[in-house]
């Protein structure tokens, strides 16, 4: 089975759980605008390159977005695996305070405190993931079980002025009442058992 179809059932499950991008009808009903989220290196339903996982360099992947709603003042990004964590999801990455002028995140955001964010992301902060680390750590699912990784982009109608160290739950609490747009990219990753 082609790789891009192999995981299609997982994407459909994700959509069924309401975890995928909202439809146009849902936008009209909820008022949350749909942001288009893309990447030059991966696509929804397709396998994430190992460069962005601990099987490779474990760099944060490049993301782009467009169709931000009018009035966007700030953007945030969260990468979460709803098939892991107790309770789910397991958060792999959280970035907030992204200027509304940014159109994406470049590959390889800093993992050390003495490394600065790129100029176009001035003010952006990497919050605490599930390991309580302020940087991206990629997929490491148990061998033989593909997982979906939801890279979700959020747009807010004002700058939330958030400090460092926030978790996904903290961000959700802060964004309450200010969320005006949302979009998602959902690649897949699977590890395979080492040969005997």
């Amino acid at each position, binding site marked *: 089975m082609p790789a891009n179809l192999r995981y299609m059932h997982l994407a459909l499950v994700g959509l069924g759980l309401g975890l995928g991008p909202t439809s146009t009808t849902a936008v009209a009903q909820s008022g949350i605008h749909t942001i288009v989220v893309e990447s030059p290196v991966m696509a929804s339903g397709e396998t994430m390159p190992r460069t962005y996982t*601990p*099987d*490779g*360099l*474990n760099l944060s992947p490049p993301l782009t977005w467009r169709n931000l709603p009018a009035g966007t003042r700030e953007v945030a990004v969260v990468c979460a695996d709803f098939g892991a964590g107790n309770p789910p999801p397991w958060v792999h990455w959280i970035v907030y305070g992204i200027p509304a002028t940014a159109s994406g995140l470049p590959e390889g955001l800093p*993992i*050390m*405190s003495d*490394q600065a964010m790129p100029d176009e992301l001035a003010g952006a902060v990497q919050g*605490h993931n599930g*390991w*309580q*680390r*302020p940087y991206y*750590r*990629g997929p*490491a*699912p*148990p*061998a033989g079980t593909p997982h979906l990784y939801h890279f979700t982009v959020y747009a807010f109608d004002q700058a939330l002025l958030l*400090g*460092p*160290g*926030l978790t996904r739950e*903290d961000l959700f609490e802060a964004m309450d009442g200010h969320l005006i747009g949302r979009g998602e990219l959902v690649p897949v990753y699977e*590890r395979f*058992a*080492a040969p005997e």
Partner: protein
Amino acid sequence: MSDERKPRGVTRRDMLRSAGAAGVTAVVGVTSLPATAETPPVTAVEQTTTSAPMAREAYEHLTVDEAVLLEAIADHLIPADEHGPGAVDAHAVRFIDRALGGALSNSLDAYHSGLAAFDRYCRSSRGGSFTSLSHTDQVSALIDVETGAATGAGAGFVGSSAAFFGMVHDHVLQGTFGDPYYGGNANFVGWDLIGYPGVRTAVTENDQLRLEANELPPFRRSAYEWDNFEKASVNAGRKGRRHGD
């Protein structure tokens, strides 16, 4: 924002405060690791294929390549920086090597297998040995080992990679800050680093006041220079030799 929500620091100062965070830096070249414990130790004068510094002394239970890799890891955990010497200067790996013949003998296989697995993991994920990687890639690899992400990467860690990291982390701390009698904390650099004033069997009120005023000079003696402390058997095979030699 409350203090406990500050990002976990990767500076040595943060690590020394918490005695729990992982710090990071970089060291030097090493060839691929042999997977055997039977390879005899070699002195530091042996040349490798790189021009990088080598393990600085003879080890009894770690091979040269294992010792160089372990020193590189230790140098990330407690690096030398503007605050002072680090784990390598404290000879933390010497402590570990000696203890692997005694109190830590149960960990000997874990070190051999873990260091070999870490070497394999670095090569498969980052394209080279740990000490050949860039500083950032070394940090990244160590983070993946620490968080357990390296466990399922096919490198062959016995158990979780996080368990291996935790073991090394704990022993590097012991080797840096423990009593020099056991082979680490060379020249008391570890005690000086954290401002430990030294073992004193009696402390006067004046001593306490001077300590609080940061005016008490350190008393650099091993606890085992007092007869009333029982010497532990670090290595039963080191007959006729004092620990800390």
